[in-house]
């Protein structure tokens, strides 16, 4: 390799694996938009981009919680039904009334947070593997929703989200869907926490090596509970946002978000083992997933084909920047 080529590639080599992943994900999103635009120019009009980004924001919000959890080496399999439960809680408690919104929304957020705390406590106090604890919690939430709503036949079940809440997501501010601003706010907060706070440092330490973090004085139990609490909180926010977007809560509305949230985190360059990555990558991952599906739909690829394509794309992404180092 000539020296000229080497210096050209140098910035690339200076990036860590997860940083490369993030960069590639954003480049891929850009490429996807171009591909979509080729087929149908209106694909890249601001209107459509805004809608796609809004759809991506729902994945992105759930994936925010999942990012925190995966960063400490855990996983949250309870997002589908926590999301769904909080959505149902929102509509059936507020009954579509703005007058109630001011206390129902905080209540829903708090309940989501509490569920996350229970997840965390189960994991730290009883050494329940995260896979099992969150899997069980998912079932519990599913059962509660089905059971308490009589299979979604209750009278309140068809309520809508309060109009003010709907506006927060579907309204427009300077031509940008308001929901995107919510997402931006979350992104900024997540970035600040992970990059600039003591909590963020401790999360990365825990994710890298729980024993070493413990011996360095990190309160492993507290950080774990906080992180799972955030998982529950973000699932809750996503539940509210989705309900605001679709106006009503439906059964199974959370199901696609388990796969999508994990995929977004991984495509964005965060290691599934924890300790490496950040939320900006997850954002790219979420947008990528949503735009990929949209482009495939443009090209008339069936749901089956979209599913296959998504799986293949994840594998390609992993092979590019998700490989573990070979041993000396």
């Amino acid at each position: 390799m000539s020296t000229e080529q080497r210096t050209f590639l140098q910035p690339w080599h200076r990036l860590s694996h997860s940083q490369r992943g993030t960069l590639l994900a954003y480049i891929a999103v850009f490429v996807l938009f171009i591909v979509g635009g080729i087929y149908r120019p209106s694909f890249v009009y601001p209107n459509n981009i805004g809608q796609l980004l809004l759809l991506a924001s729902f994945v992105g919000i759930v994936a925010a919680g999942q990012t925190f959890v995966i960063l400490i080496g855990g996983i949250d399999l309870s997002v589908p039904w926590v999301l769904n439960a909080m959505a149902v809680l929102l509509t059936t408690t507020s009954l579509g009334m703005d007058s109630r919104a001011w206390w129902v929304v905080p209540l829903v957020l708090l309940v989501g947070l509490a569920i996350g705390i229970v997840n965390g406590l189960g994991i730290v106090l009883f050494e329940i593997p995260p896979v099992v604890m969150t899997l069980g919690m998912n079932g519990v939430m599913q059962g509660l929703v089905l059971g308490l709503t009589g299979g979604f036949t209750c009278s309140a079940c068809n309520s809508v989200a309060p109009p003010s809440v709907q506006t927060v997501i579907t309204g427009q501010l300077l031509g940008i869907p308001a929901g995107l601003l919510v997402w931006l706010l979350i992104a900024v907060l997540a970035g600040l926490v992970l990059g600039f706070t003591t909590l963020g440092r401790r999360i990365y330490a825990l994710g890298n090596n729980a024993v070493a973090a413990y011996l360095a004085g990190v309160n492993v139990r507290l950080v774990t509970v906080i992180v799972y609490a955030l998982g529950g909180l973000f699932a809750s926010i996503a539940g509210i946002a989705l309900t605001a977007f679709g106006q009503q809560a439906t059964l199974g509305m959370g199901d696609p978000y388990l796969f999508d949230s994990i995929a977004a985190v991984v495509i964005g360059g965060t290691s599934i083992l924890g300790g490496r990555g950040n939320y900006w990558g997850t954002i790219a991952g979420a947008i990528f997933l949503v735009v990929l599906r949209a482009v495939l739909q443009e090209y008339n690829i069936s749901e089956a084909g979209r599913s296959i394509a998504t799986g293949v794309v994840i594998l390609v992404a992993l092979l590019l920047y998700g490989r573990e180092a070979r041993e000396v």
Partner: protein
Amino acid sequence: MASIEGRDISKSFGGVRALRNASFSAEPGEVQALVGENGAGKSTMIKILSGLFRPDAGQTWVQGREVVLGDPQDAMRLGIGTVFQELTLLPYMTVAENLLMGREPRTLGFIDRAATASAAWKLLHEAGISGIEPLELVANLSLGQRQIVEVVKVISRHPKILFMDEPTSALAEREVEWLFGVIRKLREQGTCIVFTSHRWNEIKGIADRIMIFRNGENVGTYEATALSEQDAVEHMTGRKLDMLYPEPVTLPEKTPMLQVSNLSGAGLHEVSFSAYKGEVLGIGGLAGQGQRELLLTLFGVNRARSGTIEIEGKSVRIGNPREAIRRGMALLPEDRKTEGLLLPLPVRQNLTLPILGQLSRSGFIRRDCEASLIRTMIDRLTIRTPSIDQPVGALSGGNQQKVLIGRWLLTQARILLLYDVTRGVDVATKHEIYELIKHLSQEGRTILLYSTDTEEMAHVCHRVLVMREGRIVEEIAGPNIAPEAIVAAAIHVAAQVNVEVPR
């Protein structure tokens, strides 16, 4: 013809040369001791000749033919057997399964579990060992028992060349005799045996020749009978013995800093002692006799069942490392790579992890404050790193250890618990660490030090407490502590296993 030779072997790890054009040669039917300070390259050479590492340069010759050892299996196929320092036993499988892995007796093509257990019993019996139950899980054995199982596993494959890296670190006196009896028998059979040790008496007792490594090079092979300890140490260090270690400064007065009374609990029995301000107190004994448990209990990782701990006269309860750190303690753990440092994270984050609380305002880290603290520490310890955001894993072993030490110095700890601080550290850094320890003790800090290198402990510590089976059995006071005294007190332990010394 030599059994095994390494010619011009070089190996570097992250910019530090562990071996530089080193040579190695051992004959059949002889016992060779490989000696040198921590960081001289002994373990690296053995790992390369066992196929675990690949050399950056150089060739390996076995029985007069050049070979390439791509992995441990290649070495095993050539008749090389190695007892590594890190045991290769599977903890949740039985002794029998471990001993016979890959060569279990079969019936009708399938593994016969009963036959495996009795074959294991037979192997142990033939080696002269009884008292280890083949059906027991390895995880339930003591460290000494595990070391014996690992040795039996390797020698039962009848290697023509046998490497052993510090095989006696956890063995009692009778067990060491057993091992040497086994070695003698193998020597008679023509096996070529190489082992490393820090204990001069052991080496003199069994080795035919002694090969000395210093700074990654082979500085000579000598007939064991012709080499005196002084000469050996001089070759090992390149200096006269009296210039090797900084003399510990005598304590001006004995003010107690740490007082432990009747501490009992996980692995400890009625441990009582005092440590003084400015004292370097050694915790010695065979590996696995409670030293690790003592340090972990003091640091709040293990819970004591009974007993008290007093710091500067005040009784304290330490329930976890966070509280220990708040009380001014610091722990440098056994394995810096898996228990101490966070290798993929930058130097910056590794250095300030315990003191984040002090460096932040309402949760946000004051990066400029942090950066200046870090720079001061890097200068003080001469840590070589291109930048403070360089991942710690890219630094050399010695610099990694310095980062770990730097982390704890930043906490301004008054009591430092050091577990084998110079293991795997290059020689130059090692001496810097000794100077640092002396400096810290002059500042009035208390240091509890455990080391596998008894020579080191003897010269760096004011006093050494020898532990046996979780108890303190002897106190050896300086100045002029003799390493043999530490070893003698240590190995006089009841063997954990019944051994028959082969005749």
